């Protein structure tokens, strides 16, 4: 408001005007003043908070990290017991959040892409079903959906003693889905190594095939050969390792199943709720991306003799992805952030564990700060990855 332009001809000799009439200098002064004020407020809030905490005798700092947590956590990808430290308990929370977000994002992208493409189908029934799915899922609050799925899991499945077993080694009960997994063997580690080696081989093969096609025009069946390599290498390792077949079969002991791998109702409800909800948004994003490509592109590709699969893979998707990726990134972030609703249905995600920690230690400021830092980190790393991918698929201007 104070930046009136002083372009009247008589004040062109700038040496004579005092600095408060010089808009550039004045602007700098304003900024310094504002910055100073912000700094003062921040300093005040910080010292005031510390003083208040001290007055109320509330402990400060992160010393509690090394103390024994002494509370149990329902499920954990790493070993954890009540005798472990708060730091480890919080780590369990972080890993649980990563687990549900990572699997959730992958399933969401797959389901969303599928529904988005189906939504454009020429089959009336299929297209309408997809439309109904999208509308219904988008319009019901995700918290409600989570509570609904959770209730479905524990209300409609039988108790462990009457567990349903559709195939041997798999049990459904209100304790979750339990299924047999192979007993841990050293050979599995080697199989993983050969799988990585297989991936490298496939990457080299693709480069070679592309070069050869550019030179000679011959097309090499990269897809089938890749799959063969990826499967054959670990399989060969397994056979060489003596083909171990021992399974860790779940057994009903007392109240619950022991052994095997369990998907708890909390995890299943959270994953299902988040995926179904977010996939509806992703579907619309995918539809928009595909519709953004003019019909002429497809016609041109067809007239060049490309097959429908090739049209999708070589013409439509590379262009559609440019439209899809930025909004898709924000949906991924939404899913990660919405996973904090786990607290309503008892899945021990990071917020749940951090809240318990806050309550048991009484250190709310540190706890909330930690929650913010962790989710900021999740969001920034997801964004960084997606921005990198976005750059990769972006239109190369010629």
């Amino acid at each position, binding site marked *: 408001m104070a930046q009136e332009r002083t372009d009247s001809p008589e004040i062109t000799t700038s040496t004579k005007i005092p600095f408060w009439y010089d808009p550039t200098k004045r602007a700098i002064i304003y900024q310094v003043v504002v910055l100073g004020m912000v700094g003062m407020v921040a300093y005040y809030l910080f010292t005031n908070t510390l003083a208040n905490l001290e007055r109320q005798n509330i402990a400060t700092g992160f010393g509690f990290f090394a103390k024994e947590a002494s509370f149990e956590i329902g499920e954990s990808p790493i070993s954890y017991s009540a005798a472990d430290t708060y730091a480890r308990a919080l780590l369990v929370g972080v890993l649980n959040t990563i687990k549900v977000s990572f699997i959730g994002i992958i399933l969401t992208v797959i389901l969303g892409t599928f529904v988005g493409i189906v939504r454009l189908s020429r089959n009336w029934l299929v297209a309408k079903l997809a439309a109904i799915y999208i509308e219904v899922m988008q319009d019901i609050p995700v918290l409600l959906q989570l509570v609904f799925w959770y209730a479905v899991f524990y209300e409609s499945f039988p108790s462990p003693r009457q567990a349903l077993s559709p195939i041997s080694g798999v049990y459904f009960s209100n304790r979750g889905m339990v299924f047999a997994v192979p007993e841990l063997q050293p050979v599995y580690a080697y199989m993983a190594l050969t799988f990585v080696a297989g991936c490298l081989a496939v990457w080299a093969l693709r480069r070679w095939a592309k070069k050869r096609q550019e030179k000679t025009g011959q097309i090499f069946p990269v897809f089938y050969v890749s799959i063969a390599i990826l499967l054959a290498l670990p399989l060969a390792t397994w056979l060489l390792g003596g083909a171990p077949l021992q399974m860790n079969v779940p057994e009903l002991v007392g*109240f619950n199943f022991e052994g095997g791998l369990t998907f708890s109702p909390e995890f299943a409800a959270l994953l299902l709720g988040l995926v179904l909800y977010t996939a509806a948004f992703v579907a619309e994003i995918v539809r928009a991306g595909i519709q953004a490509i003019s019909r002429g592109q497809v016609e041109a590709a067809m007239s060049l003799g490309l097959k429908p699969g090739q049209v999708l893979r070589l013409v439509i998707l590379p262009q559609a992805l440019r439209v899809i990726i930025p909004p898709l990134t924000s949906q991924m972030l939404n899913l990660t952030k919405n996973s904090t609703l786990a607290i309503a249905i008892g899945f021990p995600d990071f917020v749940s564990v951090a809240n318990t920690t*806050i309550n048991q230690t*009484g250190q709310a400021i540190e706890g909330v700060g930690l929650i913010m830092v962790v989710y900021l980190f999740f969001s920034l790393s997801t964004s960084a990855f997606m921005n990198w991918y976005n750059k990769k698929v972006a239109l190369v201007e010629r």
Partner: protein
Amino acid sequence: MRFFRVCAVVVAVVFIATASVAIAGETLDAVKKRGYLIAGVNGGVFGFSMPDEKGVWKGLDVDTARAVAAAVFGDADKVKYVPLTAVQRLPALQAKEIDVLCRNTTQTLTRETANGLNFAHVNYYDGQGFLVPKKLGVKSAKELQGATICVLPGTTTELNVADFFRANNMRWRPVVIEQTTELSKAFFGGRCDVLTSDLSQLAAHRAVAPNPTDYALLPEIISKEPLAPVVRHGDDQWYDIVNWTVMALLQAEELGINSNNVDSMLKSENPRVQRFLGVIPGMGKALGLDDKWAYNIVKQVGNYGQIFETNVGVNTALGIPRGLNEQWYKGGLMFAAPFR
């Protein structure tokens, strides 16, 4: 030049705003100025704090908060109830969102020190137990190897049950849900084998269960849970008011004063009664309150025995006997310090 004036105003406003935060008055002044008490309650435990079908808050903890309001304002209805989960309750008190926490909260050393809180006189002596469906056929908590247990997060019960299973070298799996009502729904829906909490809460949950007779309490009581109203560290006057409000409820019962006979008791010759009811002035003034404070509490809320019997006693759906919560001269633990 207008900009400088704006700047000056902004600076002034910032200073005033922040300064007023820094010298915020003592709790009693703040409560009086506001005109009503803000009490943190559970909101989901029948008999302790829960709105009835007409939306009127009822329960032992609610009556404790009402007694504080009666002491401060002479009007027990000047309370705003804030339902809080176990996880929210302590930060809400620390952050001054509530004046007093009457939410079946257990007094512990950590909470009184590192959490910066002060516990007033206990208004309910409790212990932690286990509720199981009868069809499970369990007779003792020692048989719970591998059980799935529903427990509220951020509670002492969550820590006690972990201790119990560690001490007995048994495995278990917790299901922690923050909302009390959601947790009990999950238990009665069959998600857990066991629900663990304070015995009073288990009785409350069972009272509102679809089939209360299908569930049984296990004999083990694995902890001591003295439940008391909580205030912040650093405001001794407010602490005294809350502390002596609970004592007044107990003292009234000991003196045989209840909400029906309190007016006739004003004419009592007993100097203890006269001091208590403010006929001989001094007690209220010492607390910074009206000398009629104890009279108002008893007249509008009742004495401890009345509150206990109407909310949780043997004739209610909870059917809890006085037990530890009986007066000291009848073998209980309720013992008010002298009013002099």
